């Protein structure tokens, strides 16, 4: 089963192309991370899934239903944490949840839900006085009402401290275990990397990559780099390393070889150098950081 299916979706605002021919399929039961810098089109995509905005072209199906004509039925089975929302300042947290319960015809335990997002103590205060993080958690609770099949969370960790963000990821995992599909957008890679089965990276309205984190790392040009200090960096040794399978790039500076390669060949790189008659004095290894990976796709500075 397919939870979300976008086919050739384009959205233009006047001359501005917010989304350009987007194709994306998300399977039932997976946690999908939707990544990209601010303004890449993540929220536009989500707004189209929820029929908040209408695509200029393309077809959109959510839970097997037409996003445009069957939106109410889709939203009856979906929990939504939208981007750029505001709570009702004059209503209490509990009244917000009450409204979500009535709207969805849900019957679960409201206090347990408030507890789950750590808002039980503040439930009877007006939401206008909540902090940004509390508003975020209140909205997350509203999204969880009625045990939805699909959760659409647009930047759910914005405004949360690291602990709050970790709790959100924990909830996302629990929801997936319950059987829900989770579509989770973020401009911060590490928020997504920790929980997602697959990620899609959006850049200027175009999907530039869809893969698992490991797959992306590999596709981005080798997961690791190895730095080897030798007594003399002979051409023979460098050529031997360059010709190895799994080695992408070798650069030499003075007596240090920097080798970009796949994870599994590091040891063989060392032995190859030694076999060429060169003494290895020291070596260090580092994984390509995910931030570098993200930057390599988006061509932009990663925002913290």
């Amino acid at each position, binding site marked *: 089963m397919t939870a979300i299916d976008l086919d050739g979706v384009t959205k233009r605002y006047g001359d501005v192309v917010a989304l350009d021919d987007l194709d994306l399929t998300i399977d039932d039961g997976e946690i999908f991370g939707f990544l990209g810098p601010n303004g890449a089109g993540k929220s536009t995509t989500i*707004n189209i899934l*929820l*029929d*908040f*905005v*209408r695509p200029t072209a393309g077809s959109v199906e959510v839970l097997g239903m037409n996003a445009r004509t069957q*939106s*109410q*039925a889709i*939203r*009856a089975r979906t*929990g*939504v*944490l*939208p*981007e*750029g*929302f*505001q*709570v*009702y300042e*004059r*209503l209490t947290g509990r*009244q*917000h949840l009450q*409204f*979500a319960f*009535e*709207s*969805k015809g849900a019957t679960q335990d409201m206090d347990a839900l408030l507890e789950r997002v750590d808002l039980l103590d503040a439930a009877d205060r007006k939401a206008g006085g909540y902090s940004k993080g509390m508003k975020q958690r209140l*909205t997350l609770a*509203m*999204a969880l009402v009625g045990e939805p099949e699909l959760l659409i969370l647009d930047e759910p960790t914005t405004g949360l401290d690291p602990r709050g963000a970790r709790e959100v990821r924990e909830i996302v995992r629990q929801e997936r275990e319950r059987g829900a599909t989770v579509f989770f957008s973020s401009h911060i890679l590490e928020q997504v990397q920790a929980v997602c089965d697959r990620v899609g990276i959006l850049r200027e309205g175009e999907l530039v990559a869809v893969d698992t984190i490991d797959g992306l790392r590999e596709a981005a040009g080798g997961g690791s780099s190895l730095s080897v200090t030798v007594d003399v960096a002979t051409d023979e040794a460098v050529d031997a390393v360059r010709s190895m399978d799994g080695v992408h790039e070798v650069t030499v500076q003075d007596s240090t070889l920097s080798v970009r390669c796949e994870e599994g060949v590091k040891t063989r790189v060392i032995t190859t150098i030694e076999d060429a008659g060169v003494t290895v004095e020291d070596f260090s290894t580092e994984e390509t950081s995910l931030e570098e990976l993200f930057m390599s796709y988006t061509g932009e500075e990663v925002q913290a």
Partner: protein
Amino acid sequence: MSWAAVAKKDFQDAVRSRALWGLSVVFLLFALVTTYAYVEFPDMLAGGDQSGVGLALYLAGIAGLFVSLAAILVAYRALAGERESGSIKLLLGLPHTRTDVVLGKVIGRSGVLMLPILVAFVLAGVYAALSLDPFGMADYLIFVLMTLVLALAYVCIVVGISGSTGSTSRASALAVGFFLLFELLWDGISIGVVYVANGFSLPATFPDWLFVVNQIPPSSAYSTALFAVIPDAMGSGGAGGIDAFYGTPWLGVVMLAFWIVVPLAIGLRQFNAADL
């Protein structure tokens, strides 16, 4: 039935508006003072013959003014405000259609506006009924009911305006513009229309159709409609003194129906088509 949840939420939210409460207290005082004056000084105000219908027609003036102003206050942000702040995404993230949202808004905000009207007119009515004998309670109750219809019409107008834009400053400008045009300037405009239609001079007698033009403002339509629905007021006015098929106070009822349906339909259409 999804509009019911929206209406309830919206009522809870809008009823907490301080500005509305301030205006309502002023309205309550006006209604009571007016009723007091009507009861205590019959020679000056009632022309000697006090009754429920007399009080009703007397209160209709301030009701029209209050309802139009309060409706703007209560409803101009109904949809535009939710779009501007982004709370519309919270609302529509839940399984409501946009039409449900608009209907829920109309019901919720009407409830909020009807509350002070009922409080003020019930208190005024009880006071008048205890002081006057006979009073004509049925006539008075029909008047109160008709005032609630005016409130509904005005909420439909302002929610319609609010649904046509995503900006509250635009919504308030449009709503205030509506008030200025139809409630303050309309008499001058209708005379101006006659003046132009008559070749830039005022005729000796006004044409019959001026009666129709004069019923366009919602509160005028309401005042006229009172003569159609209050039994003891029938035949005593609201027909414009003209001999045409439209020379009937029912024209006021028709006009109110127009205001309930048309602006809301336009606003709903725009809201349904909008990117939020």
